[in-house]
């Protein structure tokens, strides 16, 4: 995390909490940002039932495109928009490999992810680009009187809410419903006149566009783009989606998209807590390990809870297995 030095000096969030206010807001900020990634992962994994790992490449792609544009003197908003479209293009390649060339979805996405590593180096021209001192999409909000650690999460909150509402609207539209049917039952979707190939292309493009957009914002928050910043993004996105499903109902689309963002914030708070609680002794380099453990926990805990309940019931009735 960028504010390690500041964090030590900042006041604690509450009582003798190991997490300072700035660290807490920082976690919320990154949580909101990865909420966008989670929405993208939700489209591919949950709506289309398409395990898409392209996002590990499309996040740095978005970051790289935006950073290159900004360093080149372009408007940061235009650069961010271009990053979105670059992500869409990456998603189109994956979906095209699957739909037209009939390559297994998982493999198709890994191929694109690998190819994107080279593409990203080409886009940036070097492994990293610093944005220190450059104007970013967050610059106009700096003069509004709030300290950055309040302002950035607020701006992101608005962005995420807008993205969520737009996604809800889309998924409840005729095309969106057709996309959901494509993921749920391809044969039925075809019989209803839905071009399932086109839906997959559109959905995976949208998913990666969102992730690249998140990458563009991430680079501008962090002060730079780095070729390695995409490692494990898919796991973080998936962790957010699964955590969201574990903590709240996802009966409707509107609830399911809220769950993605909530899951993402919870995930970041967990990570922040784990890294800041000195007695556990975890450090920044343990981040990926914590992520993997969290995903395993989120995936297995709901099932274990059910098992425990069944055990209780059968024990109460004196029924033997």
């Amino acid at each position, binding site marked *: 995390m960028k504010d390690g030095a500041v964090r030590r000096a900042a006041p604690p969030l509450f009582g003798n909490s190991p997490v300072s206010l700035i660290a807490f807001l920082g976690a919320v900020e990154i949580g909101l940002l990865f909420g966008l990634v989670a929405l993208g992962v939700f489209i591919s994994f949950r709506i289309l039932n398409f395990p898409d790992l392209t996002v590990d490449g499309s996040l740095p792609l978005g970051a790289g495109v935006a950073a290159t544009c900004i360093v080149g003197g372009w408007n940061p908003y235009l650069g961010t928009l271009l990053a979105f479209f670059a992500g869409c293009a990456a998603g189109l390649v994956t979906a095209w490999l699957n739909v037209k060339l009939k390559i297994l979805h998982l493999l198709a996405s890994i191929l694109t992810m690998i190819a994107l590593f080279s593409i990203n180096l080409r886009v940036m021209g070097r492994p990293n680009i610093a944005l220190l001192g450059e104007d970013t999409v967050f610059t106009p909000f700096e003069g509004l009187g709030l300290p950055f650690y309040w302002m950035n999460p607020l701006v992101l909150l608005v962005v995420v809410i807008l993205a969520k509402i737009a996604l809800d*609207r*889309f998924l*409840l*539209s*005729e*095309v*969106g*419903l*057709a996309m*959901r*049917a494509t993921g*749920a*039952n391809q*044969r*039925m*979707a*075809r*019989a*209803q*006149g*839905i*071009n*399932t190939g086109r839906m997959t292309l559109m959905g995976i493009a949208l998913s990666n566009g969102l992730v690249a957009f998140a990458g563009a914002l991430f680079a501008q928050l962090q002060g730079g783009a780095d070729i390695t910043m995409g490692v494990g993004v898919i796991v973080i996105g998936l962790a957010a989606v699964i955590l969201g499903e574990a903590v709240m109902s996802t009966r409707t689309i509107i609830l399911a998209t809220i769950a993605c963002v909530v899951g993402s914030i919870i995930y970041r708070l967990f990570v922040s807590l784990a890294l800041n609680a000195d007695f556990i002794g975890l450090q920044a380099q343990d981040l990926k390990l914590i992520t993997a453990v969290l995903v395993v926990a989120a995936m297995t805990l709901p099932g274990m809870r059910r098992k425990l309940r069944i055990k209780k019931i059968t024990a109460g009735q004196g029924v033997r297995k």
Partner: protein
Amino acid sequence: MIEAKDLHVRFNPGTPIENHALKGLSLTIPEGQFVTVIGSNGAGKSTFLNMLSGELIPDSGSVTIDNEDVTGWPTARRAGLCARVFQDPMAGTCEMLTIEENLALAAARGHRRGLRSAVRNELRAEFRERISVLGLGLENRLTDKMGLLSGGQRQAVSLVMATLNPMKILLLDEHTAALDPKTAAFVMELTDRIVGEKQLTTLMVTHSMRQALDHGHRTVMLHAGNVVLDVEGEERRGMKVEDLLHMFEKVRGEEVDDDSLILG
């Protein structure tokens, strides 16, 4: 009018498990006719139906609908002309979506899908009206997930979905085979009612000779990828299951050994 001409298809050609599923099958269905198709396992019933719906493309031969050649059209493109009810109640609907969302998918069949809301109030009113005809009380459960319904209820909804928009032919693929006898009778009664009301051109594949004779205007029997029997009008009216069996044996020159054909 639906015209299938000299359809041939081979599965796994050039391999030991090659299967010549259709061998020059031809059938013409005039507008408004309800045809029942019967045949034993592997006779080519499902293959023929899949060819009409576009799930399979023939090796040779042609399918024309109202004089338009649709032989090479994929399923989605043909969906405006063909409506279909599947054998498996799980296959014809999306269990993850609500009843009204399933109906909304069907309501857009044959139209361009846009960005307007899929379940709109005027549609909801129409859904309520159409679904109340079933007499299952589902009109008050439109926002329930489809997965909560029983197989019979789902098949009934599938039937409403298939007949929501105009079509050139309604394809029923053993749509009562997975149901218990009472529910199957209910779905069949519903089928007769809807098809009769709208004078729909219909092709119903069935495994039961009883069902094949009791419903529709014309009965076609398939065997080994070809039409072996085609009866309608007077001749069909006086026909009993035993007659059908007898004719079948005569045409084929062999004993019928598929129990389900006799007992069904």
